[in-house]
């Protein structure tokens, strides 16, 4: 019986304490953003899907060594290049990223010794078609600087 009333009072007090906490939150400004109308700036290190880095003439830095292709755990990078006649270096002819299997681990960027790929800041990736996620990075690079 001794605990009967003390239980009642301490219990009621704890409930009032909790209500005081939520009441204090009531007039505060919301901490959320209404997303499509406002959005955050992405961090410089944000890991989006990869993109090619071009030089001044918008030619890719890539030398088609294929390190990124080998480093990729899920095999989502496919690149091809050919040696132009008379040229010494291989020239990139296609670079596709299959974003459907990409896990954004960044192994490819780390493995690149030629400063040819980096992470993009793209985060608005949504589509109902699978083909939209098979990204031609070479085309993307060409379109980027236009």
């Amino acid at each position, binding site marked *: 019986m001794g605990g*009967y009333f003390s239980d*009642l009072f301490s219990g009621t007090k704890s*409930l009032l304490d*909790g*209500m005081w*906490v*939520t*009441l204090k*939150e*009531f*007039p*505060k400004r*919301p*901490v*959320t953003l*209404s997303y499509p109308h406002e959005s955050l700036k992405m961090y410089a290190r944000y890991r989006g899907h990869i993109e090619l880095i071009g030089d001044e003439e918008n030619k890719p830095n890539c030398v088609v060594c294929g390190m990124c292709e080998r480093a990729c755990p899920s095999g989502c990078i496919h690149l091809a290049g050919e040696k132009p006649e008379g040229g010494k270096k291989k020239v990139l002819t296609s670079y596709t990223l299959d974003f459907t299997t990409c896990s954004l681990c960044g192994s490819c960027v780390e493995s690149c010794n030629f400063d040819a790929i980096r992470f993009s800041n793209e985060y608005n990736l949504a589509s109902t078609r699978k083909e939209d996620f098979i990204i031609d990075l070479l085309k993307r690079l060409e379109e980027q600087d236009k």
Partner: protein
Amino acid sequence: MSLTLLNVVLAVFIAICFVGANAAYLVWCERKGAGFYQRRPGPMENGWWGLLQPPIDGVKLMTKQLLIPGGVDKAIFMVAPVLAMFPALISFVTIPFSDNIVAHPIDVGVLVIFAFAALGGMSLLVAGWGSRNKYSMISSVRAVSQTVAYEIPLLITTITIVMISGSLNLGDIVQQQLDGFLSWNVWPLHKEVGFNLLMPVSFLILFVCSVAETNRAPFDLGEAESELVAGFHTEYSSMGFGLFFMGEYANIVIGSCLITILFLGGWSCPFGDLGIFPFTHNVGWFLLKIYLIIFVFIWIRWTFPRTTIYGLLNLSWKYLIPISLFNLLLTAGLLKVF
């Protein structure tokens, strides 16, 4: 005679409109309130501050398909949502919004409200049983024991008020509290009883019981979404669900009306009858009071975790019923003395 009938029909129609609008915009209030308590803005997209959200939700609910699970008893399944809504509507008939706005003043108004409130518990039983779903079944069993446990302290506490007022008529009960807020039944001072220290306690008991009666958190054991998925309305879609929803909010309104009338002086102005237009006794005070109580309901819902069924029964049988009985005895004694 026919005028009275017309009066009642009109009143029911107005009640439906009132309940419908209330239910819709209480949902909006609830979502906004939840948002503010949770550091977010709540619905914002449809209309200014999301004010068009409730009609849009209503249209969505009405246009959805009403699914009837295979193998259920169709009649029982369909009648349950109506049972949830109907008693709530009927109860509005006897509630006095002001000294002249009342559909049909019944001398035993308090009894009518409790009679129909008990029916609300039955709708949960019928819905849970008729759904042919194990979660709903458990929920309906819980709901019934919950209703039984809370009707008792609710009634006992109300009897103390009835004893003080000497009337079962809701209008008469308010009439005795018109001399400013010190004459309200919630205070221990009372002109007839003298000094009844337990009046605030019985106000709290009535408040807790009406939270439990309306199946709201922390007593929402019937729908306990993290245990029973959605409890008794797991299988209901479209307006079946919509009716339960509206019934729930109608019950909240009735609960807060009852609290206001019994304890907070109904439509009376807290400063007594000043005679100046905006501050005199009128329906505005009544609405202000019920919405304040609804605000507290929302506040409670978004603060506390849910109790369990035995926690709830413990609270009822160990605390509320003994205290309300003691309160009844004390009040009766005081009435005898003075």
